[in-house]
């Protein structure tokens, strides 16, 4: 963090996770978080984790994905969580995660495909499925009209890959499995 950011409030806003109302992604565009499941955090955020009010928290490079315990409501707990996250960012060095990068990337890929990029693909009659995520390489399989479409690779790199990289800058590359051949997941699933 720069000196200016130490005095200025941390940039932070929550975003909905499509299809999962219990989860919110707290976007922290100015920070670099340690990726993976959050195990321990300083201050109030750590307390919320320990008490189980936060059922799970997962760090993306620029966002903290938090799932509240069933029965708790974001409208009510949002402000508490915000202050807790805000305070915890002052001691980023104290955050401990399981450093599971591939699972983090897999979450990001799922989000991207469920979001506007997926809508775009669907609007063209196409489909895309992530078949594997390994060491920062995402393998996808085309479906629907994408199969055999000459623009498919353009879409893959300009839209899909760009959208994933925006949220996960450490992404190495996105590769498509040979046309039509839906390979089973290779390694880590």
């Amino acid at each position: 963090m720069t000196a200016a950011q130490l005095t200025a409030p941390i940039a932070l806003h929550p975003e909905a996770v499509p299809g999962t109302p219990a989860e919110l992604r707290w976007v922290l565009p100015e920070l670099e978080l340690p990726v993976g499941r959050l195990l321990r955090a300083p201050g109030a955020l750590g307390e919320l984790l320990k008490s189980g009010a936060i059922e799970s928290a997962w760090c993306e490079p620029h966002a903290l994905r938090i799932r509240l315990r069933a029965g708790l409501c974001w409208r009510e707990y949002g402000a508490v969580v915000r202050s807790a996250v805000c305070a915890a960012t002052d001691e980023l060095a104290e955050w401990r995660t399981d450093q599971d990068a591939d699972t983090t990337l897999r979450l990001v890929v799922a989000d991207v495909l469920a979001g506007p990029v997926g809508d775009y693909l669907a609007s063209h009659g196409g489909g895309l499925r992530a078949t594997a995520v390994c060491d920062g390489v995402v393998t996808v399989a085309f479906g629907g009209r994408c199969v055999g479409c000459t623009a498919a690779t353009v879409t893959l790199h300009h839209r899909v890959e760009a959208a994933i990289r925006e949220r996960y800058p450490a992404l190495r590359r996105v590769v498509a499995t040979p046309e039509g051949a839906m390979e089973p997941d290779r390694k880590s699933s």
Partner: protein
Amino acid sequence: MSHHHGQSGARVAEGTRRFALVGSPNSGKTTLFNALTGLRAKTGNYPGVTVARYEGATTAGGDTVLIEDLPGTYSLDPISPDEVIVSEMVDAHESYDGRRPTPDGLVVLLDATALQRSLTLLTHVLHTELPTIVVLTFGDDLARRAGSVDAAGLSAALGLRVVPIVAGQRSSVTLLREALAEVEEWPAPAVLPPLEPSELGGWIRSVLTRASYRPPDVDARTQRIDAVLLHPVAGTAVFFATMFGFFQTIFTLAAPLQAYVEQLFGWLGGVASERIAVPWVADFVSEALIGGVGGVLVFLPQIALLFVLIAVLEGVGYLSRAAFLMDRVMGSAGLEGRSFVSLLSSVACAVPGIMATRSLPSERDRIATMMAAPLMTCAARLPVYVLLISMLVPADARFGPFGAQGAVMFGMYLLGAVSAMTAGWVFAKLGGRKQGAIPFYMEMPSYRFPRPATIAAAVWEACVAFVKKVGTIIMVTTVLLWALLNLPLQSDADLVAAGIDPADEVAVSSHVIEQSYAADVGRAISPVFEPLGFDWRINIGVLSSLAAREVFVATLGQVAAAENPDDPQAALAEMTVTSGPRTGEKLFTPPVVIALLVFFAYALQCMSTVGVLRRETGTWRWPLTAFGYLFVVAWVMAFLASRVAGAVT
């Protein structure tokens, strides 16, 4: 800057959905309102313009819905009466004034060129927890100034639906209409944005990053123009030159048009007296309707021209510069720039000017501005000034390259403005110590080419309002006066007894008028106006102008039409004093005309203004104060002016 006559009178069924437009001043609210409702409401290009309440109907998904345009506001922390209205309107728990139901949905306008500030207002609005949708305006302006914003990203970050709207683009408004029909499906953010200032700052930064927001460059064109127009010396010179040039056109451009309208009425008068068999009906038509009411209506071209100027200056974004320039002057008068905005509105009419004081947070400044506003030269004074100046200054008289008539008119406006500032200063002093200064937030919108349709609508609305006023209050007063001027009825025997030949129409009508009830009233108040050189006819004119200033023109028109129906203008100029020491002398001598001009510059002859002062202050104390002090000042100044003029001529 005009009256709001745009209320949609349509009765609406129970359960009709209501939506309120919320946005900061200049966020394009009024334009959107017009596009939705088709009402001819004005587009504001400087703060404080939308103070009256606007409501209109539109259709969404086949249903009629009501749209309310709330006053422009920067926050829902009410510090001025304007903001109180907005915050109460959008309060889900309280209905405004206890009469209006809470809106079913809020449409919040975010100005894409000032997104950061707009988001602060949005945060306040979201805490009302009413269904909310965002309209993103001025995206085209943003692009022109090399900025950009990703509406989809903004929508995701806010958790709200975002509809980008381009002014004048029908399809984007259609999208909004469709959205209004689906208010139940509007998404709401899972967590409300923080209100605590530092957290709010962080939230806004984060949202802007997510929306890939690139703020606009400072508009180069605007910067270059402002270097001149906001310069203390050059800017002021340009301001006065603009005004001076405008008053030239009032006489050079509008006068020929006025002549056409006069010809039309002259022809109508001829037709009326020829074709109407019943003598008193013919008299009524030619004197009251054509001489009186028509005499006011001929000033329509000048009114139209005045509003063209106001609408153009407002449309290009010049008026807020003028307010900025005047802020310094106002400051020395102990008032703030916002007061100037309200005084500027009073150039159209004091009523919206007084309503505009709602944006003033300080009670002391509000009262001082209200007491000053009636002194600004309103549109109603224009016909009176044109008539009087034409009698005072020959049309071909020149000051160097400029017409003398226009120069005198400019002087009258200047007199009004200087007097208003002085009155504001005095009342601010009387109002006691200045309360804690609240920063004056004045936006300098980029210069924009005004949309011709918006200007046409503004001018049209002003003309309709003028014609309406002529058709109502002026017509009624004129008809009443006609009766007073023609009663009691004089039989032929009475006339013969008075030594008048009943066959001599001109002699008869002047005798009837001289013996009328109106003459009695005019003579009864003559001690008051005698020192100013007014005779009973002018007294009646002044008295009747208490209803509305233009009635003065109508009254003189009637009297003149009775004496010489063919050429009332000439009759007016030739009119002589009929009794007292000046008998036989010309009535409208330069000192008398000057006294009248000055009297009209100061006197509060407008019942609408008195009414709005009562409503806005909630007491009779202030309207009575205004009426009283303005009458005294008018009389004294008119007396001094006529003495000075008498000494010079």
